């Protein structure tokens, strides 16, 4: 069904899919090459933590933007990008965690535990990661069918993950916090665009414009 819709969505939508499935793995390859070739700064651990975290957040925001974009533009095929973008966001969030736990902390869980107590951005970052992994695990089509309405509720948590991730970013930045604030504002805006009264208003507006 979903596949059929995408198939009939025209070349533009197909190109977008190709762009996502080529672009994201490519960005990962570039990062791996930079690590292997020593092309990062003298604190490569921090660089990788920042890059993977930033990419995860970008992909999550793009995934969250699909439905509102479809609503505003009327181009419904764009909604099919929601799932791959979300899965890649979860992948990058997992890599972000791996860089943190394995490379930065060398899997010294006593030290991670020690820092967890004083570290506010860890405290909001971990639940965001848990949500993204839960969403990734329940994303195959059989799970959607089996879980029914529960699936829908669970996947609304993607917005909570977006807000938590933006807060995680905000608390981690030392001085200039305008960028994380911008991310937070975008997630809030996208969330607003999902509220039923807002959806109705936008749809009416769009129909009036196109009429």
């Amino acid at each position: 069904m979903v596949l059929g819709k995408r198939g009939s969505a025209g070349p533009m939508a197909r190109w977008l899919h190709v762009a996502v499935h080529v672009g994201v793995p490519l960005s990962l390859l570039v990062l791996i090459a930079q690590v292997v070739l020593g092309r990062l700064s003298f604190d490569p651990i921090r660089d990788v933590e920042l890059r993977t975290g930033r990419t995860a957040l970008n992909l999550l925001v793009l995934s969250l933007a699909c439905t509102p974009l479809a609503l505003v533009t009327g181009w419904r095929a764009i909604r099919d990008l929601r799932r791959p973008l979300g899965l890649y966001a979860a992948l990058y969030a997992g890599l972000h965690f791996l860089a943190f736990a394995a490379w930065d902390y060398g899997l010294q869980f006593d030290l991670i535990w020690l820092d967890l107590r004083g570290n506010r951005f860890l405290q909001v970052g971990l639940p965001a990661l848990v949500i993204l992994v839960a969403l990734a695990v329940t994303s195959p089509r059989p799970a959607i069918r089996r879980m029914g309405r529960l699936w829908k509720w669970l996947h609304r948590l993607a917005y909570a993950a977006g807000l938590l991730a933006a807060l995680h970013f905000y608390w981690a930045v030392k001085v200039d916090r305008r960028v994380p604030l911008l991310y937070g504002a975008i997630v809030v805006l996208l969330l607003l665009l999902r509220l039923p009264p807002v959806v109705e208003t936008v749809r009416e507006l769009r129909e009036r414009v196109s009429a």
Partner: protein
Amino acid sequence: MKRFAAAAAAAVGTGVLAACATPPTGTSEPATSTDTPVAAPTASGGAAPDTPTPSVGAEPTAPAWPTVSAETDELGDPLTADQAINSYNNFYEFTFSKEGVAQLAKDFQTHPWSIEVGGLVTNPRTLDLADLLAYSMQERIYRMRCVEAWSMVIPWIGFPLAKLLAEVEPTEEAQYVRFETLYDPEQMPNQRGGTFPFPYVEGLRLDEAMHDLTILAMGLYGKPLTPQTGAPIRLVVPWKYGFKSIKSIVKIDLVKEMPETTWSSVTPSEYGFYANVNPNVPHPRWSQATERRIGESGRRKTLLFNGYEDEVASLYEGMDLKVWF
């Protein structure tokens, strides 16, 4: 004090020692960390070896400081690579980006330079580069712990701030020392930004400033400081977070009241005046319990007073370090 003294003795050994690991000398050496000169910096230009130290306006050439004399700090941890120390810098006057500082600061003019020392002193002085280079230089291998939870081990070359302060003779009234970085928006592009208050100001209590571990550094790894590391002269207070160790100093004032410092005025809830390295007092947004040593993977536990507890803990006797953070 013992541990540090031993390390200092080791550190100021001959340059030959640089080739081997920790020197074999035991605890027998009763050396103190002071008064062990690293060889007087020689002067520039002229052929005669006894030309006086550089005059104002002339570019002082690299003083003949020996290369580094030990490969580790007194705890046995290796020195951070010279290139890392010179490429990974927090120097907001140039940019907020640590990797961007070196490039933006490369043409920074550090001569002529002078430091005005005044305030509550009997003998106010203005010292130019030649005056500063005339102090007897020592090598000090110190850990540098950034408030952002990363750290380095740096072989500084400098002299105790106490020597300079003794010369200007603080009056009875003086309780604190206030330091100021150069304000020159033409040369320091981020001073034009308006997002951060400049000039940068730091401060110490007078007894902290007089402590033997507190130095004014003019070099590292046997070479003069580069602009990105705070040329031509900077403070180094190894038991405090790195931001206390103010760079490119132009003004030192003895004052009566605790000075308003840059970070504690930008976000008073996050940065205090003391800023002693303390794993038990987290920054409001992140833990200070561990740190990442640049060049290593896997973290290490942060030490109280950055490992200089024996030397400095007595300065804070009776103080609640959670209140005076």
